[in-house]
C-alpha cells in the first residue's frame, strides 16, 4: 500500500491529540495493524521515520502490534486463525463465520517521556 500517507495520517492524529509543545516528548506511538489491513509494518515504520525526521517528532518510534486474522465459526463455535484470508471454518467447512480481529488500522496510544527527564535522541 502507500505507507507514506498512512504515516502522515498517524502524525496528524498524534498532533491533534497533543499540545505542540509536547511533541518532542513522544517516545512511541502504539499502532494496531491487522493482518488483513493491507499495510506492511516494516514499510510503515520506515515511512514514519522519514516524515518525522527534522520535526519535533523526530526520534519517536512506532510500537507496532500486529493483529492476526482470527475468526469464529457460528456453526461449530470453533475459533481459528486464517493467515491466507480464507474465511471458511477449517473444522466444519461452514461459511457462517465472524471476524474477531485482523482488519484494524488504529492509533492505540501515545507514550510520552517524563518531561523532567532528557528525551533520548537518534
Amino acid at each position, binding site marked *: 500500500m502507500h505507507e507514506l500517507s498512512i504515516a502522515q495520517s498517524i502524525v496528524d492524529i498524534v498532533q491533534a491529540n*497533543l499540545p505542540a509543545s509536547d511533541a518532542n516528548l513522544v517516545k512511541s506511538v502504539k499502532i494496531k495493524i491487522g493482518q488483513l489491513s493491507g499495510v506492511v509494518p516494516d514499510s510503515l515504520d520506515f515511512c514514519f521515520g522519514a516524515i518525522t525526521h527534522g520535526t519535533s517528532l523526530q526520534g519517536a518510534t512506532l510500537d507496532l502490534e500486529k493483529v492476526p486474522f482470527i475468526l469464529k465459526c457460528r456453526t461449530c463455535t470453533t475459533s481459528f486463525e486464517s493467515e491466507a*484470508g480464507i474465511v471458511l471454518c477449517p473444522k466444519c467447512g461452514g461459511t457462517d463465520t465472524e471476524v474477531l480481529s485482523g482488519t484494524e488500522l488504529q492509533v492505540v496510544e501515545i507514550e*510520552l517521556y517524563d518531561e523532567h527527564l532528557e528525551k533520548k535522541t537518534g
Partner: protein
Amino acid sequence: MSVITIERKVLEKNDELARRNRELFAKQRTFVINLVSSPGSGKTSLLEKTLGYLKGKLKIAVIEGDVQTDLDAQRVARFDVPVAQIVTNGGCHLEARLVADVLDRLDLAGVELLVIENVGNLVCPSNYDLGEAMKVVVASTTEGDDKPLKYPAMFRNASVLIINKLDLLPYLDCDINALKRNALQINPSLTVFETSCRSGSGIPEWCAWLQQQVSKGYNVKPSTLT
C-alpha cells in the same frame, strides 16, 4: 512515563468524509457502486455495456478515476450521461475527499445510479470507503483463477464479483469454477456474475440486478470496513 489513550482509526478522516458522501447520496436517493479491479480487466467496457443496456431505463451518472487522462470519461460521455473525471496524477486509489470535491460539479438531481470507476488497482482501493453502497470487483478470465486468494482484502470488501472476458475462456487455462470457489472462500456472501463485453453475455442479468438494487433503495454501510 505517561500514556495518552487514543484508540482512533488511522483512516478516520477518510471515513468521516465518506460518511458525508453517503448522507448526500441517501438524500438524493442515488444508489452508488464503487467499481474496482486490476488495470485492464474491462471495467470501462463493462460500464459502456451497462450504460447502453440501461439507456432510458435508469438515470445514471459516472465518476471516472484515473492516474492520467480523461480517456475513460470521453468514452462514457458518448452515452449522454453526466460524467466527471478525477485525475490523481499518480495517486493509486480514489479517496472520499476526491469524490466529495467532484460532487460539487456533478448534478445528482434525479440520478438513480452513480457508478464510481476507481483507479485500476486491486490493492489500495479496498481500504478507502468513498461513501458507496457497495464495491463491485471485476476479475477477468485472463487474470487467472487464483486471483481472489492473492488479493483477499479486495474480495473481502466487495459485495459483487463480475467475472469478465468470458469469451476468452476457450483460449485460457482459467478454471472458472475454481475462480468462483476461491472467491467464495474469501467472501461467501459475494454475488457473482459472468460477463463478456464482446458477446454481450451476462450483461442483461447484471443490469437487471442493478435495477433491482436501485428500486430497493438499497444503501448499506460497507460490509467489511470494520
